[in-house]
């Protein structure tokens, strides 16, 4: 059974790129445009991993991570943050909240697959 990943990013193009890359590597992908949207879409789904941007409208990545980690049902889902070089502070906050893995934007799609494989195999 293919692994299911949740992509949270407000930029449609970015989501598109990530999702195409992952799908072509045999993963199943759900897309969400911000934290709130993501929380809604997660309910009732078995998610194997979350890839989330940090800067998003409505609910940003940090708040989203905190919410995911606060919920016992979703706490065990590993999260990879998408950060930029200037996001150091947010990255630290995300780490404190329980998201240990991150990727610095911009990245090549293959690198993302590499990270996903390192986290969930």
């Amino acid at each position, binding site marked *: 059974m293919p692994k299911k990943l949740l992509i949270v990013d407000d930029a449609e193009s970015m989501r598109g790129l990530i999702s195409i890359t992952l799908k072509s590597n045999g993963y199943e992908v759900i897309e969400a445009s911000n934290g709130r949207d993501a929380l809604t879409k997660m309910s009732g789904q078995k998610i194997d991993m979350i890839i989330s941007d940090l800067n998003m409208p409505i609910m940003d990545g940090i708040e989203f991570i905190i919410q995911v980690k606060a919920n016992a049902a979703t706490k065990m889902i*590993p*999260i990879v943050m998408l950060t930029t070089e200037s996001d150091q502070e947010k990255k630290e906050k995300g780490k404190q909240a329980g998201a240990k893995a991150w990727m610095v934007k911009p990245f090549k799609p293959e690198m993302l697959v590499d990270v996903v*494989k390192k986290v969930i195999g």
Partner: protein
Amino acid sequence: MDKNFEFYRNQFFHEMRDILEHVNQDLLVAETDVENVELLNSIFRGIHTIKGSAGSFELPEISELAHHLESLLSLLRDKKLTLNSDMVDVILDTVDSLFEMLNSREKNEIQSLNQELVQRIKKFLPSTTKVETVKTTVKSKKSDSLIPDSIQSELEPFINSHKNVYQVQLKYTDDDISNGYDPLVFLKNLKKVSDYYYANPAMDKIPDIYNFELYKFYLRTEIYIATNLSKEEILDLTFDPELISVQVIADVESSQNKLSPELLDEFKTNSLELLESLESLIIEYEKKNSIEALNKIFRIIHTIKGDIDYVGIVFIKPLLIEFENLLDYLRKGNIIKDKKTADIILRASDEIKHYVLSISDKVKESKNVLAITDEIKSYIALKLKKQISPIKLNTGSDSISGNPKLSTSILNNFVQKLIQYKETLVFYKENKVDINELVDSIQKIIKVNEFLKISELDSVLSKCQEIFIDFEQNPENEILLKKCIQKVIDFISGLEGNSKKLGEILIEEKKLSPDDINHALQLQKLLGEILVDSGKVNEEDIEHALDRQELMSIAKNKKSEITKNFDSNTMRVDEKKIDLFSNLAGELIIARNTYEYLLTLWDNKNYEESLKLFKDNFHVFSRISSEIQTAVTNLRMTPVKGLFQKFYRTVRDVSHRQKKTIELLTKGEETEIDKKVSDALSDPLLHMIRNSCDHGIESIEERIQKGKPEKGTITLEAAQRGSNVIITIRDDGKGLNRKAIYDKAIQQGIKVNSIEDDSLFQCIFLPGFSTAKVITDVSGRGVGLDVVMTSIKELGGNIEIHSQEDIGTEFVLTLPMSMGITNALMVKVGDSRYAIPLENVLETVKIRPQKLKRIIDGYGFYFRGEVLPLETLENILNTHKENRKQIDLEDTNELSVVVLKSKNEKFAFIVDALLKNMELAIKTVPDTFSHLRYIDGVSILGDGMVVLVLNIEELIGE
């Protein structure tokens, strides 16, 4: 090119020269103070900077030479070698070579690396190819404690087959587990890449079910693996390297090729910079077919190739060599670019980049590197075979074009090349090389022969080419080829060691007349000089025959003294001086604004007050302007230190050569002097110091005999006296031979005072006064002392000599501190005003006409016990003899007289009126008037009037 880039590039040249001069000085001190590590450090840093900067500014040859020097210096610094005078010689020569390279580059020329010099440096370096035998057993013994006994025997074969063995531990926290990061993913991946995998589960650390907490991480396992991967690559298997720890147990290659982390870091940064620029160059080459881009690519690869030797990353070397070959073929046109070329170059450079990035603390292997190396190799072979026919066509057309006459030394050079290539042919005959290498050599010989035009060789070679075309189709070809090759070999052998024969051949071939050869033989100069001097070869022809760069470098080989003669038109200025200017400019603006205000005051008819304020402001202005003037003069002033320091080297070299011990002492180095004067002084001073070393200081034996200290001393001293700078060159040598000079002077009919008077020594500055046999046995070389005197005079200076036999000689140079601003006496003649430089004015007097005496057809008068000739300035300047003004001896009015002094004479001018002394900014006479020799320059007065500055020496002469 980008303006900014140009700017930084110019600055770079300045910095580099500064550094090199410092290195020069430090080195000379270091030679006498071998224990001084700080000095060596400073030298090392200097060269290191040059290496790095030159790389960034795309001057690979400089970078490379600096790199070799750096390797030597680093050993010295680390006390692995001790500095001796041979080394100092090599280092100094290298510094000189760097100087020359920089100068060439500044003129946008390239001087290629002097390989001979590199070899001389390398002689001091311990050989890098020391292959340590791998002592694996010792290694594994050392790490015994790490490996559990149970798996020791299992791991042994892996260690012996040069696998890396690591112990890996998980450092996942409980939090990581509870947040969903599963260590098993990593363990699975790790197992995949390992040839041997053993996990010690450490079950005893896992609590029983009652105490077991769900999200706690108990799996504190130790994993032992044997793998090809490096430590970094293992760490890279996780998304965060902090999650595991990797400990090296046996790491065969790293112990074999342990790289120094500092060196490696440096190498990485340098080569990555280079490699990054590579990509755009390759694209440029692909799109525009730019040879320049190709050359740059070649140089970059060449530099990296040089570096890896030094750093010790041997694995990648074959790739770089092949890569360089490919580029070289492309450069020389042996391989013609096709669609695949750029692609293969790009991929090769990518692989190099990846590899360089991936090396950490040891040399490792990479399949990709091997693959691309093979690919390039086969590509070269393929292309070379294919292109035999087109090249043949080229040869045909080229040989029709003009055939320049060659001088023998050029020919010799080519014959040397032929001999080199001959080796390959011989090897081929003995079946030691494959056909591709042979083809390459034949191509090269053809190229050379295009230049030599030896018809015998030509026919055989074209035969060879014909054979190559269907070489594989026809089995007989091999025998045919061998026959042809034998002919070529015989021919070349005939040339070997017998350049005369070559000459004869060429005469037979009517390529050269015997005169031409004789002429060339007489000119036992270097090839380069002949190329330039005789003009018998033009550059285009050379380009056809040989890689142009190679020849250019030979041409450059003539020992130029660019370093010393280098005349830079820019100068560096102390920042404080600039600050002063900013302040003054500020004040100037304020004063100007005050005027604006004063004018409104004037408009309001407030005359009295505004006049007072106007006067005040005028004083402010005059203060500012005089300060600015001083500052400008000051700006041009540089300490003589820079000038003096060059001479340490001179003294060292000369004393070494002559086996004397001479010490140079400098004093008053902080004395400032106009940069122009300083630049112009360089050569005369050099000559005088050489003289002192050569002729002044005696040999050691002689000194001992005379009871003098073994070590001779030359003192170079600068001091300021008024607006003059006095430079003294003093030696404690044998002194000038008073009697010999006196006799010689009498013999040549030179008027001299007495034998005791030091003015006698002025004779040695006279042209044609041969001092060679009189004063010393060794005759001076280069410019004579008369030239020295002329240049000092040109600067408005003078030289005095004091000398005492066996005590020493002293040359005292008096020079104006600055040029440009002169104090002058203004005089009036008719309606014009003239300026007479104050240094020529002895006195001004007023005398009654009655006191004048008629002397022959002029006048004279008594002046302090002497009779001085006298003339009106008007008459001297007036060229119309018929309008000469007569002096009315009966006139009761006093005459204004200026008493002047020149070199040897005194003279007096009558002028209409004496005006005041003024500081004048003198501009040179425009070219159109330069034939008026009695005019030194022009200046503009405050009221806009132009005054001529008189050249008194010339006037008196007339």
